[in-house]
């Protein structure tokens, strides 16, 4: 009882702090390699949040108000579901479902619906184009993610994330299935449309699905994307980096460190990889990355038969 309360509290804390951590780390990653730290690294995110809160909320002509206001909150809720699936230790976990790997897959699938809804409900051209783009790309991310995650679940012989961690006692999945984590990171950038895969909310669409959103709901949308990135990092750390496993430190600290590592890696990739054109991105996903995920799955299957 105490542990489930503690894990729920942990989810809430990450929900509250996640966006700030992501914003600070993103600024650090962007400026630190150039040797010049921006002066507003620590206060910049807070002042932007305060500025957004005081902004007037934009209205378009005849939007679907309910869906438009609901979509950012739903995306945040999906991110919270993802956070609730991350096991902090063998017992400290908010929802220890026997099919938690599949539930994470559903979070990715439902995110497609929510992002489409966000762009569609504004009843404006550029958001709608962004929404369509995400659907076209999101279906390919979901497929890659599915195969890679089945690969991670194979050695555990279970769809439960705690079992997936337990199966990495001798060897982490990142070594056992070397293709898994790189492919999964691509899925993470796609799911949160971050960095090179920011095609739904990209600047060539003047902000894409969020082009017409301002004020508090813009803040919720940006926070939701950041929390989704954190939740994704937590799942990646669990499925490929051994979750709570590690010497000397207690389990939850290891999960935190690994999550922050994946997060920093994603933000670094987001800052330093070039952007891909949407058409090329679809080609890349279906012709290169999807066959690679098949290879990953076959690899995992052969290893599981051997062992």
């Amino acid at each position: 009882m105490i542990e489930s309360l503690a894990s729920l509290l942990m989810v809430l804390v990450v929900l509250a702090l996640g966006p700030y951590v992501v914003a600070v780390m993103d600024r650090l990653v962007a400026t630190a390699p150039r040797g010049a730290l921006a002066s507003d690294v620590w206060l910049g995110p807070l002042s932007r949040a305060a500025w957004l809160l005081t902004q007037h909320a934009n209205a378009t002509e005849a939007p679907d108000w309910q869906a438009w206001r609901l979509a950012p909150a739903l995306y945040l809720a999906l991110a919270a579901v993802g956070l609730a699936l991350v096991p902090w230790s063998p017992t400290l976990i908010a929802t220890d479902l026997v099919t938690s790997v599949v539930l994470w897959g559903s979070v990715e699938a439902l995110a497609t619906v929510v992002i489409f809804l966000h762009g569609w409900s504004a009843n404006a051209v550029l958001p709608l184009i962004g929404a369509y783009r995400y659907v076209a790309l999101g279906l390919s991310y979901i497929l890659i993610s599915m195969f890679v995650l089945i690969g991670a679940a194979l050695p555990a012989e279970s769809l439960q994330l705690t079992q997936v961690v337990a199966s990495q006692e001798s060897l982490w999945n990142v070594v056992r299935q070397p293709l898994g984590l790189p492919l999964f990171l691509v899925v993470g950038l796609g799911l949160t449309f971050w960095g090179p895969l920011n095609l739904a909310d990209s600047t060539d669409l003047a902000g894409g699905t969020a082009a017409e959103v301002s004020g508090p709901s813009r803040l919720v949308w940006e926070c939701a994307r950041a929390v989704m990135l954190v939740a994704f990092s937590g799942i990646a750390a669990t499925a490929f980096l051994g979750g709570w496993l590690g010497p000397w430190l207690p389990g939850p600290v290891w999960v935190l460190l690994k999550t922050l590592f994946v997060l920093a890696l994603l933000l670094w990739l987001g800052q330093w990889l070039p952007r891909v054109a949407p058409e090329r991105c679809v080609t890349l996903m279906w012709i290169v990355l999807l066959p690679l995920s098949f290879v990953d799955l076959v690899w995992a299957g052969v290893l599981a038969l051997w062992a």
Partner: protein
Amino acid sequence: MEHSIFVDIAFLLLAVLAVVAGWRVFRTDSMVRASFFLLVSFIAVGAIMMLLAAEYLGVAMFFMMAVEMMVMALFMVMFMMNPAGLNPMMMVHQHRLSIIAGAVAFFILAAMALFSSFPADPLPAGLDPVRSLGHEMLGDSMLIFESAGIVLLATMIGVVVLSSHRGRYGAAEEGSVPPGLEPGGDPAGQPEKGESEGGHEHHHHHH
């Protein structure tokens, strides 16, 4: 099966959600909203399945239906007038008959549920539903499961054949013309004669 009062409350709320969302599907002004209402109904049913300990099936409902309804919403916007729901929309025929048929179906099925007696044979203790489903699918019922896979493959091929641009007898949209602006008038939106052929510009619409 024994369960707590919270399960009953959750079931009641989810049941109301499933029925109301299912009813709203046919009462909303936008096709996109209609398909997402249907998705809500599916999600509520999936959650009820999870309450019934069918944990894999419930979660499978979530992701299967999320993708299916997403595709459905896209087709809605492509084919239907009034995708954004700016105008009232009520496209029905044989309305009274349909209402009667729906009500009759409900009452017959409800009467069957209420007045027939089913064996009370609940889940045995210690059953792992996900494991038992997996062993069934790749064990005794493997033929059924694999047949479903083959049928899905055949569907994919059939769908590509049906909807592909080029068939054995030429382009698929050859001879297809949009309706005229007035009844019996010239097709709308056609390029003037002598301009470049219109068929190929279709490829550029998808971006």
